[in-house]
C-alpha cells in the first residue's frame, strides 16, 4: 500500500541545519519579531509565508546577519547554523555570508560581465588557486542554475543585458558559486513572469538536493508548489510551522486557515 504514495524527489533530509530559539528583532522601538522558535532542516525547501509586514523578510535577513547593515535594528535570541551561534562575537558576518548565500527580490546582477558576476564570490573568498579552477566553478554554477546553455557563448557580455528570468538565474548562480550550505531567497520570483517563475521554481527543486533553501514568498501558491516545510508568520509571531501538504490541506491554527483561504490579508 505504501509504495503507491506520490514519489518525492529522492533526497535524504538530514537533521536541523539552522535553529532559532527565542528570536526577537527590534527596529528602534518597534518590536518587529516576537519569540520565534523554528528548526530549518537540511536539504529541504522551507517557505515563509504571511501577510505584508509580518516579519518574514526580517527573519530571513537575520539568518545571514544582513540586518547588521541597518543601524537601528537589534536582534536578540539565539540563531545557530550547524550548532554554532551566528551572533557570537567571534563570528565575522562576511565569513557567514559565504556559507549562507542570498538571492534578492529584484534581480540585481553586478554591472559586469556574466563571468565576472559569478566569479566574484569565489575570488574574494579565495576559493580558487588559478584561472582554470575559477572557470570550472563558473561553469558548474551556471549549469546548476540552468543558465549555461543560454550564455556559454557570451560569458563576457554584461549581466544586465539578460532577460528578467535569466538575470535572476544569474543571481542564483552567483549565490551558489561560493558553495554555500544554505540559500536564502527573498521573494525571488516576484519580479518575474509566470514562465520564468516556473523555471526558477524547478531550479529550486533541483538545488534542494545540495543545499537547504529558505524562501520568503507572498504567494501562497508558490509556497505550496515549491516547499516541503512551511512557516506562517503573522504580526511578528511564528504562528504555525509544519509539513507543506498538511498546512495546505488541514492547518492546525485558525489564523493559518484564515490566511490560506484568503479570509485575512
Amino acid at each position, binding site marked *: 500500500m505504501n509504495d503507491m504514495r506520490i514519489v518525492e524527489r529522492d533526497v535524504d533530509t538530514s537533521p536541523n541545519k539552522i535553529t532559532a530559539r527565542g528570536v526577537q528583532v527590534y527596529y528602534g522601538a518597534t518590536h518587529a519579531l516576537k519569540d520565534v522558535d523554528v528548526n530549518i532542516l537540511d536539504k529541504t525547501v522551507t517557505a515563509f509565508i504571511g501577510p505584508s509586514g509580518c516579519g518574514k523578510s526580517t527573519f530571513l535577513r537575520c539568518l545571514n546577519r544582513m540586518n547588521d547593515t541597518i543601524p537601528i535594528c537589534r536582534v536578540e535570541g539565539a540563531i545557530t547554523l550547524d550548532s554554532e551561534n551566528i551572533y557570537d562575537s567571534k563570528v565575522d558576518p562576511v565569513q557567514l555570508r559565504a556559507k549562507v548565500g542570498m538571492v534578492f527580490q529584484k534581480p540585481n546582477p553586478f554591472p559586469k560581465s556574466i563571468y565576472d558576476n559569478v566569479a566574484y564570490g569565489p575570488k574574494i573568498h579565495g576559493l580558487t588557486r588559478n584561472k582554470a579552477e575559477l572557470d570550472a566553478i563558473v561553469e558548474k554554477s551556471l549549469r546548476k542554475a540552468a543558465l549555461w546553455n543560454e550564455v556559454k557563448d557570451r560569458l563576457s557580455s554584461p549581466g544586465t543585458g539578460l532577460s528578467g528570468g535569466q538575470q535572476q538565474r544569474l543571481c542564483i548562480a552567483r549565490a551558489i558559486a561560493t558553495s554555500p550550505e544554505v540559500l536564502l531567497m527573498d521573494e525571488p520570483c516576484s519580479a518575474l513572469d509566470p514562465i520564468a517563475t516556473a523555471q526558477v521554481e524547478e531550479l529550486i527543486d533541483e538545488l534542494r538536493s545540495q543545499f537547504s533553501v529558505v524562501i520568503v514568498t507572498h504567494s501562497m501558491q508558490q509556497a*505550496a508548489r515549491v516547499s516541503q516545510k512551511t512557516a506562517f508568520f503573522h504580526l511578528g509571531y511564528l504562528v504555525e510551522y509544519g509539513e507543506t501538504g498538511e498546512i495546505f490541506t488541514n492547518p492546525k491554527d485558525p489564523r493559518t486557515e484564515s490566511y490560506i483561504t484568503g479570509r485575512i490579508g
Partner: protein
Amino acid sequence: MNNEKHIASVFDRDLEAIQAMIMKMGGLVEAAILESSQALETRDEELASRVIKNDKAIDALEEQINTECARVIALRAPTAQDLRTVLTVMKIAASLERCGDYAKNLAKRSTVLAQMAAIGGSAGSIRRMAKAVELLLKDALDAYIQRDADLAADVRVRDREVDQMYNALFREFLTHMMEDPRNITACMHLHFIAKNIERLGDHATGIAEQVIYLVTGAMPDEARVKGDTTSYAMITAEGGK
C-alpha cells in the same frame, strides 16, 4: 492532447502517480469481477472467500487516491485538462470502489448458491451477462488510458444490451418463482446477483462518461440510454405481459 511536460517536473510526477494508482485499482477490480463470476460458476468457495478478503485492498486504495488527489489540488492548483484529470480520477475511484463492492457481494452470494440446486438456464445467462460487463469495464478503462472518447461512447451504448439481459433474467426468475415456491430462495439470490452485475454495467458506463468529460470538457449531451424496465415489469398468474 497536450503532451508537453510541465516546467515544474514535480507536477508531472504527481499526476502520473495518481493515474498509476487508478490503473492499479482498475486492475484489482477487473480481477475481482473475473474471479467472483468464476467462483459462481465453478462453485469454488475458496476463490469466493479470497475475493471477499481482497476487497479491503480496493477500499484502502480508494481512500489513498482521495487523499492524494486532495493534496494535488491544494498544492498544485491544477487547471484545464489537469483539473479534469484529477476530478476524473476521484470519480472513477468512487465508481471502481462500488464495482469492487458488487464483486464482493457476488462472491458472498455464490457461497450460498453453491449449496443449492441450479436453476435451469439461468447460469448461462448470468455468465453471459458477467462476460459482457467485464468487457464493458475493460473498455471503459482502456478508453481512459487512451483518452478515447469514441470508445467511451460505444461503452455507453452497449450497456443497453446488459440492461436487456437483466430484463429477461428478471422475468425468468419471476416465472420460476411462480412455478415452484421452493425455487424462491435460489431465485432471490440469483436475482440480486443479476442486479449487481447490471449495476456494475451502469458504473462502467459512468466511468465512460467521465472519460468523455476528461477528453471533451463536457459531460455527454444525450441522456444515457436506460434500458432497464424492470421498475415497471409485471407478471400475473395468467401469464406475463
